[in-house]
């Protein structure tokens, strides 16, 4: 090119090469270019001015001033919260304590930042714990929601799980909603844990960094459940906008295609380098997700006990010390926790404060930390662990101090009761427990907190503890290892720099810990000592830089009120002319963004590492997609875990309550299709929505989908053990066409990640057709339920007839099909989901590399149209193939279930679907495969 690049060209070029937010670009004139030197050597030198260790901030301001302060410092605190902080500084006892510690009455910057992190939406879920007022215009509202719900978390999500535990006498859940991930028993010897997080905000700014550290973070969550866990699976799902949409995005932000590509790269890098298989992968598209959704999950295992000590319990007592293991602290990820609930506004990309909320990952360091933590745990050195995620040490140590405070308060209460009742070390354990009514909730299920205290009571430890009922910690930042000089104390304590784990140990084991860490190339620094002061005190360079009461830090915040108003949608069913030949429609439908195979992504993730994989993401000779994957989490044990997902985003436009129900039904169905059963399934729920507090219709969808998912969980006895809510899914940008600001709010979604435990791999089943001549069955009635279907969407409609899962009909199928599979009668099994029977049949053929001849007459059910039969998305259905000579046996097993034979697997590649005496689809397996490769490729 012999002219200068104009700025438009320059920007589109650099945007294709990298992300202007995080990469640096240099423009060199071709005349001046020296090929010997190239662009020269740019060493990433961080030169920070030497800052004061801390500053005092005046919070004695009027309301306007408080709000301004919150905004200027990116605290993301509202007026009520700022006022609460202001009030604290007037508390005479608190002032006295400050003076004694050498601090002024005014708060330090560190204290303010610690409060903002601790109270961030990310950490305390103010919205889910708010008071939800629900008004419905639907006279026949199916959701059964009351007018007032005091915390959707405490009134919908949690009670569902406890109801299931009680109704079904579940004894395999040992930790729910309390620790960093939910814990269940895989068998008597091995525990499993599961947690799915989201990392939307950073991924929207920088796909690689965001997704990379998202994976790193969620595996740390699992790792720091109890004292440690081994990560056996990494999961990823995302919702992106279609790369062909949004032609008017400004040039300096990450393009949607680049977002997709770099998120894949980030997930690949972390999982592969950590040696964790990434098997469960779901890539979804919806044009309301300009702020992309990046869901990252992990499953982990640990021995139930090590030397008689239960690994899922955390113990912490005054005198114990905390070490931080792993990464160095730096400026990356400051304000991640608060930033994630702030607007991703059109100028977010230029704000250096928000830029910092993307962290920099290093999986090799994390791998070292985990390996070392494992060694320490097996040696009985670790008493408790906590990861440094959102809010960094501020949250990790704050939460540990809070845990200690809670423990001490109970220990004190127990001791007082024992004194009063005259119970002592000589008393029987039963008597010790019996005397605790009103002090300790002895019947709590899935509470490691209560279990730890019970252990102390049973072992007699409780009688020898000295406690004043309070817990606190003294944090010393002096010796922490920094990436570079120039960090202030507050930056150090809230930084979300990656790969850091905090472990709590008894003081006398410090030397051992230090030696083992050093031997394993892990940097370990003592960072805190626990005490019974009731205060969180922070020291840096021999100066006190912060002092906050632990109870204030974690006190109840003013409750948010969220108004939800449900108006039934007014969509109608579209009138679509019936085509006699559906071949082209069929082929178009299976190659859409939401139906395509994405084998190019799946093969980039190491899904075989750790050597336990059974049902892979790509199955059969023809490599079709598997909707569920399975693996042996522990090689020396028989058990198999199955992972699947349920998410029908668009259905929420018609009825969010049914979407919630359907997501659970789908996820369970997929687990069954891979050889699972209803015995032991648990869920993680991830809510995604724009700010519900600003839009009653959004709030209505959110509460309705939560209720729907909980209703389904209760019905099928599949409890939720953990979850996460992302309630700021909106993004603004300045349109390059209109120069106006456009605000894009995401459709509310509840992504249900199911996890099934099966006793061995003998029932493993895949979707691929296997033997020519096998009978092809459809299980489950197909109804006129195309509302929000892929077919309607392709035709530009939403429709009205959203699938409504009929639990009473589906439940017997979910019970009988596993038996048929167990008897070895089922050669292939595919759950019918997105794009209905069309994609289900196509995938079985693609995976098996075998065609089929089927006739839809048998499953017409008065639908009267081939397109409706093929494209309906009625839930709870399966396509299975059965050896022709054993069809009678199969039908007997499935007695009482809607189960219709529609044709045969073919020995050729022809794929033929007939209806009412004519051919409606006529194509071949290679053609199907080519189309299913899809429109989005890199």
């Amino acid at each position, binding site marked *: 090119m012999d002219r200068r690049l104009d700025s438009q060209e320059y920007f589109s070029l650099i945007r294709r090469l990298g992300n202007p937010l995080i990469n640096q670009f240099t423009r060199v004139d071709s005349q001046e270019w020296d090929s010997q030197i190239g662009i020269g050597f740019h060493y990433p030198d961080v030169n920070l001015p030497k800052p004061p260790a801390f500053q005092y901030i005046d919070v004695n301001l009027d309301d306007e001033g408080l709000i301004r302060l919150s905004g200027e410092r990116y605290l993301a605190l509202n007026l009520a919260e700022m006022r609460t902080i202001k009030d604290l500084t007037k508390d005479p006892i608190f002032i006295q304590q400050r003076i004694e510690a050498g601090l002024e009455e005014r708060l330090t910057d560190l204290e303010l930042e610690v409060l903002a992190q601790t109270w961030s939406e990310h950490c305390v879920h103010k919205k889910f714990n708010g008071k939800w007022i629900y008004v419905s215009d639907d006279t026949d509202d199916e959701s059964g929601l009351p007018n007032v719900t005091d915390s959707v978390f405490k009134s919908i999500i949690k009670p569902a799980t406890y109801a299931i535990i009680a109704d079904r006498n579940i004894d395999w859940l040992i930790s729910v909603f309390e620790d960093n991930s939910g814990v269940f028993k895989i068998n008597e010897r091995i525990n499993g844990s599961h947690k799915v997080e989201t990392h939307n905000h950073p991924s929207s700014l920088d796909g690689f960094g965001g997704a990379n550290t998202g994976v790193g973070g969620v595996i740390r969550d699992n790792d720091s459940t109890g004292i440690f866990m081994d990560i056996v699976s990494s999961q990823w799902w995302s919702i992106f906008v279609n790369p062909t949409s949004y032609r008017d995005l400004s040039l300096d932000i990450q393009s949607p295609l680049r977002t997709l590509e770099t998120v894949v790269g980030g997930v*690949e890098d972390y999982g*592969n*380098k*950590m*040696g964790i298989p990434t098997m469960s992968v779901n890539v979804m598209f919806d044009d309301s997700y300009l702020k992309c959704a990046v869901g990252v999950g992990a499953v982990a295992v640990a021995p139930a006990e090590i030397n008689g000590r239960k690994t899922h319990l955390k113990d912490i007592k005054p005198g114990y010390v905390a070490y931080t293991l792993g990464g160095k602290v730096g400026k990356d990820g400051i304000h991640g926790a608060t930033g994630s609930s702030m607007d991703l506004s059109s100028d977010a990309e230029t704000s250096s404060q928000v830029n910092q909320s993307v962290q920099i990952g*290093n*999986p*090799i360091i994390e*791998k*070292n930390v985990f*390996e070392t933590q494992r*060694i320490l745990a097996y*040696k009985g050195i670790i008493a408790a662990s906590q990861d440094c995620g959102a809010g960094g040490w501020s949250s990790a140590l704050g939460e540990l101090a809070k845990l200690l405070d809670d423990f001490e308060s109970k220990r004190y209460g127990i001791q007082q009761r024992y004194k009063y009742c005259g119970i002592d070390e000589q008393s029987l354990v039963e008597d010790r427990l019996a005397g605790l009514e009103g002090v300790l909730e002895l019947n709590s299920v899935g509470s490691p907190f209560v279990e730890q205290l019970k252990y102390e009571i049973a072992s007699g430890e409780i009688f020898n503890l000295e406690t004043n009922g309070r817990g606190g910690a003294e944090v010393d930042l002096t010796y922490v290892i920094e990436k570079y000089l120039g960090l202030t104390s507050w930056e150090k304590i809230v930084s979300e720099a990656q790969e850091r784990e905090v472990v709590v140990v008894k003081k006398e084991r410090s030397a*051992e810990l230090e*030696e*083992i860490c050093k*031997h*394993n*190339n892990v940097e370990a620094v003592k960072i805190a000592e626990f005490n019974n002061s009731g205060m969180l005190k922070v020291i840096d360079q021999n100066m006190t830089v912060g002092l906050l009461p632990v109870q204030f830090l974690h006190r109840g915040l003013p409750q948010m009120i969220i108004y939800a108003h449900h108006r039934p949608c007014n969509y109608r069913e579209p009138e679509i002319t019936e085509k006699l030949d559906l071949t082209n429609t069929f082929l178009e439908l299976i190659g859409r963004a939401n139906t395509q195979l994405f084998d*190019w992504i799946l*093969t*980039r*993730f*190491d*899904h*075989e*590492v*750790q*050597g*336990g*994989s*059974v*049902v*892979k993401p*790509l*199955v*059969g*000779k023809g490599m079709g997609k598997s909707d569920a994957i399975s693996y*042996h989490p522990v*090689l*020396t044990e028989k058990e198999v875990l199955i992972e699947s997902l349920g998410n029908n985003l668009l259905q929420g436009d018609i009825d969010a309550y049914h979407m919630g129900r359907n997501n659970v039904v789908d996820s369970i169905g997929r687990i069954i299709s891979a050889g699972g059963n209803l015995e032991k399934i648990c869920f993680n729920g991830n809510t995604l929505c724009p700010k519900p507090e600003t839009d009653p219709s959004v709030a209505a969808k959110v509460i309705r989908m939560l209720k729907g998912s909980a209703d389904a969980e209760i019905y099928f006895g599949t409890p939720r053990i953990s979850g996460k809510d992302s309630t700021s899914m909106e993004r603004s940008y300045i349109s390059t066409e209109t120069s106006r600001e456009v605000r894009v709010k995401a459709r509310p979604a509840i992504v249900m990640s199911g996890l099934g435990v099966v006793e061995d*791999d003998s029932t*493993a*089943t*895949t979707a*691929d057709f*296997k*033997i020519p001549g096998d009978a092809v069955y459809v299980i489950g009635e197909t109804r006129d339920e195309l509302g929000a279907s892929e077919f309607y969407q392709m035709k530009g409609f939403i429709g009205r007839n959203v699938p409504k899962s009929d639990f009473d009909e589906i439940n017997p199928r979910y019970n009988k099909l596993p038996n048929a599979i167990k008897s070895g009668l089922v*050669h*292939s099994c595919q759950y019918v989901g997105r794009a209905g029977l069309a994609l289900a049949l196509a995938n079985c053929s693609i995976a098996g590399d075998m065609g089929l001849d089927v006739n839809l007459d048998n499953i017409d059910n008065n639908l009267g149209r081939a397109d409706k039969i093929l494209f309906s998305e009625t839930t709870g259905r399966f396509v299975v193939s059965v050896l022709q000579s054993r069809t009678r046996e199969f039908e007997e097993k499935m007695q009482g279930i809607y189960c219709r034979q529609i044709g045969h697997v073919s020995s050729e590649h022809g794929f033929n679907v007939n209806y009412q005496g004519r051919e409606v689809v006529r194509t071949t397996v290679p053609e199907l495969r080519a189309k299913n490769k899809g429109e989005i490729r890199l």
Partner: protein
Amino acid sequence: MKPKVCVLRTDGTNCDRETKYAFNEVGGDAEIVHLNSIIKGYDPAENRQVSLDQFDILAIPGGFSYGDYIGSGKIFVVDLKHFLEDKINDFIDKRKPVIGICNGFQVLVKYGLLPRVNGEIKQTTTLTYNDSGRFECRWVKLVQPRESKCIWTKGISSIDLPVAHGEGKFVAPPDLIQRLFDEDQVVFQYANSSGIATTNYPDNPNGSIQAIAGICDPTGLIFGLMPHPERYNRPMNHRLATLQKIKGTLPDHGLGLDIFRNGVDYCRG
């Protein structure tokens, strides 16, 4: 007596546990040993002396040693040469078997222990970026061109295994490649479904010259391969296991274990 296997681990190693499991399943007594334990002769966690001499087999497992940031296996090789050269020479001189899988293969090649055609320990070949430019995780079919001299693959003329790597393309000058074939040092080649060695993607997942997937040294004791035999440790690991089950061809054990069994059996004599 169970042969003692050292599964050597350093920063970024990640296939150590399944490699240990595979050896133990076939009668080995494997343990995971940190590089620092060998260097210092002491393991503080176990509180005991450690030496390479104690072991009969050395296994360098897969992973991303030190992140592979400046080339796969490179820093691990520098560590081994700098700290343990004498000990490794001694181990090899005693004719003890060595296996390097994936990252371990990259280490053996870059150290120069493979293919070592002239007896000199010097890097003569390399494993570089896959032709696809991407990390590739998929199952491949492997065949032995002729019964090679490798002690690890006796009786295994063909096997299906998964690969998972970004840098697995075997590259060497033509005359050296010829020599490897002539000397029966080519142990495995990537093959198509008919069992014919191929350079076509994806049957050959990385574009290796002459479809080379694994080689051994002239003694047949040192073996390196890109695919992961430890990941085929039970019958249901195979990507077509559900089909094999129906057809009655599901083996009674994970066939990848046969490689480890050969190594263990060799030590038992």
